[in-house]
């Protein structure tokens, strides 16, 4: 018994001694740039959505046509590895005798047990870091507990009521006669591994006479979502890679001071990446270094078709994010209103 106590004490001491190593803090001033929105900022790029930006974006609403940019979230859609999203329906009210009162009120509700980065979802500023350093030089080892982050959570985001821009890479690549499609796509798509460059983005903007402005939300249509839409048949292929922006295109978008970059892919950036020994470097550039959000698994084909039909690639972005305290991201519903 005495030995067991000694062992337990030694284990506890060991754990305590190891703890600083586990939560070793880097000098975040050397790894991550400071935020342009101030040393205490936890919001990121939505600081750019000022009343003037929202008012200007409202001018995009001309016909009132609403186009979704959201994919369904249901069993069978592509999720990575052990990712899950499950619902459990509580419907006891439908059982005999379950109705309430003379008016026979019945009800149903759900238990939603899900990871947050599933389906069409937003990456918050606490999602990606460089070592233990996150957006605005925050050493996040200090700001987490068992359940959530205590800094950089979604509750700090401001409005996404801004102008959205769809950049149709499929049509750009078709026009340039360089579309290398994947045979499993039923509609034209850009194949995985294809790097989207700043010149490609600029060609897409020029196609509809759009100039990006500060506070815009940019969505990129690659056609890769066609594999998502075939769920579950092409889930493995969908997850095996994707076309996307490279580091140069990310830099260019950062320079335009956009607030988010979305795409019809699961990571927005090209996979396999440009350097085989880097992991998701565009995520770090956008989120960690600049507080710019990423939207993954967006549905972009409908708004791309709408843009082609109307010659208008801009819209009012309708998207809200739950004030979910301490979350790193969440699934969202997105609409383009024109």
């Amino acid at each position, binding site marked *: 018994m005495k030995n067991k106590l000694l062992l337990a004490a030694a284990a506890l001491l060991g754990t305590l001694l190891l703890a600083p190593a586990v939560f070793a803090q880097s000098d975040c001033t050397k790894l991550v740039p400071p935020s342009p929105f101030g040393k205490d900022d936890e919001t990121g790029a939505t600081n750019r959505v000022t009343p003037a930006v929202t008012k200007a974006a409202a001018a995009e609403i001309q016909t009132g046509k609403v186009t979704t940019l959201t994919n369904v979230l249901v069993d069978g859609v592509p999720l990575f590895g052990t990712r899950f999203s499950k619902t459990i329906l509580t419907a006891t009210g439908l059982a005999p005798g379950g109705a309430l009162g003379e008016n026979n009120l019945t009800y149903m509700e759900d238990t939603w047990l899900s990871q947050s980065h599933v389906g069409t979802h937003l990456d918050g500023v606490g999602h990606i870091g460089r070592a233990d350093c996150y957006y605005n030089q925050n050493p996040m080892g200090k700001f987490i507990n068992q359940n959530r982050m205590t800094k950089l959570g979604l509750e700090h985001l401001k409005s996404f009521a801004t102008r959205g821009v769809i950049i149709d890479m499929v049509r750009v690549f078709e026009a340039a006669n360089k579309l290398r499609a994947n045979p499993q796509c039923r509609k034209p798509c850009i194949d995985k591994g294809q790097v989207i460059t700043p010149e490609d983005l600029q060609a897409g903007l020029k196609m509809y006479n759009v100039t990006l402005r500060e506070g815009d939300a940019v969505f990129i249509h690659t056609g890769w979502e066609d594999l998502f839409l075939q769920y579950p048949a092409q889930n493995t292929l969908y997850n095996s890679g994707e076309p996307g922006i490279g580091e140069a295109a990310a830099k260019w978008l950062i320079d335009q001071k956009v607030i988010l970059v979305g795409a019809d892919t699961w990571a927005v950036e090209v996979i396999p990446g440009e350097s085989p*020994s880097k992991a998701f470097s565009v995520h770090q550039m956008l989120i960690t270094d600049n507080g710019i959000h990423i939207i993954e698994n967006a549905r972009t084909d409908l708004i791309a078709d709408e843009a082609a039909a109307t010659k208008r690639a801009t819209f009012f972005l309708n998207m809200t994010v739950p004030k979910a305290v301490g979350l790193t991201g969440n699934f969202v519903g997105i609409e383009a209103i024109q």
Partner: protein
Amino acid sequence: MSIAGFTPAPVLGRRSLLGGAAALLALPLAAQGAAERRYRIGFANLTEDPGTRLEGLGFTGGDVQASFVLAARSLPVEMVFYDNDRNREKTLANADDAIARKLDLYIQYCDDAGANGEVAKRMKTAGLPVLAVTYPVPGAPLYGPDNALAGRLAGEALARFANATWQGRAAAVAIVGDLANLGDHVPDRVEAIAAALKEHLPSAAQTRLDTTGNPAQAEAQMRRFAAAQPDHKLLVAALDDTTALMAKAAVEAAGRVPDTAIVSQGCDRSVHGGSNDKKEIDPTNRGSILIGSVAYLLDRYGYEVLPLALRMLRDETVPPRVPTRHVLVTAANVFTIYPPIDMN
């Protein structure tokens, strides 16, 4: 033969962790990429038969070609791919085609020394520069593995483990694999492993188990070896990853897991994977008896070789021999060297 053209991406200053030096040297070149013309570079693969393992390791010709396709995306090059198919006639026909097409440079990956000599002659006559991969081509710079270094890394890792973990306990060494594979210089790896172990763990007796190119034989050989060494700790230097996994299965079946450490050569996808794959070498599997595998990076050849090719095309000096930057891949560094892409 196939052609894949890619739009060059503007320069980012990116560099490979492992290929830092080469990439850094290539930066000035890449920085001028937008201004200079695109080069047409041929790559004649050893073989694209998916059933053939290359260089005595677990990689295929597909792995090598894919690395060229991916690396070319960010460089001012248009790749023209050939399959030498381990066939001399095809190899020479490929070279002739490259000459007829007036390619700017030819990368030859062929283990037929006679064919390589003839290719060298024809290319010299045509004035087409050649870069050789793994197997020498007369007069051409050579990129390829440093077999002695790779072997030494494995031997040192095993000795280090034994000295740190089993201090003072008797240990027996098995070097297991295709010992006599001269064409791929496997004996060079074996001798380097043996020498490193002798230097750092002189008391451990060494045994060589020859699978004659059939990794499946390793299981029976390792069972017998383990049974013959009931009182010894077992240090296993496997000459490829498949053999390492076979050896691991053997000691598991023999109940000798606590007594065994294995280090392998190659680090192909059978031992490392993404964050959801849970392969043998994985940060969440730090207790594995397969403590590491020496990376040969055949799946990065394109990233290493194309910058060299561009330096040749720019008349810059290229060393006559550029070795692979081998590194021991363990659970502690596998995600740094092979970052997973399935975590998003």
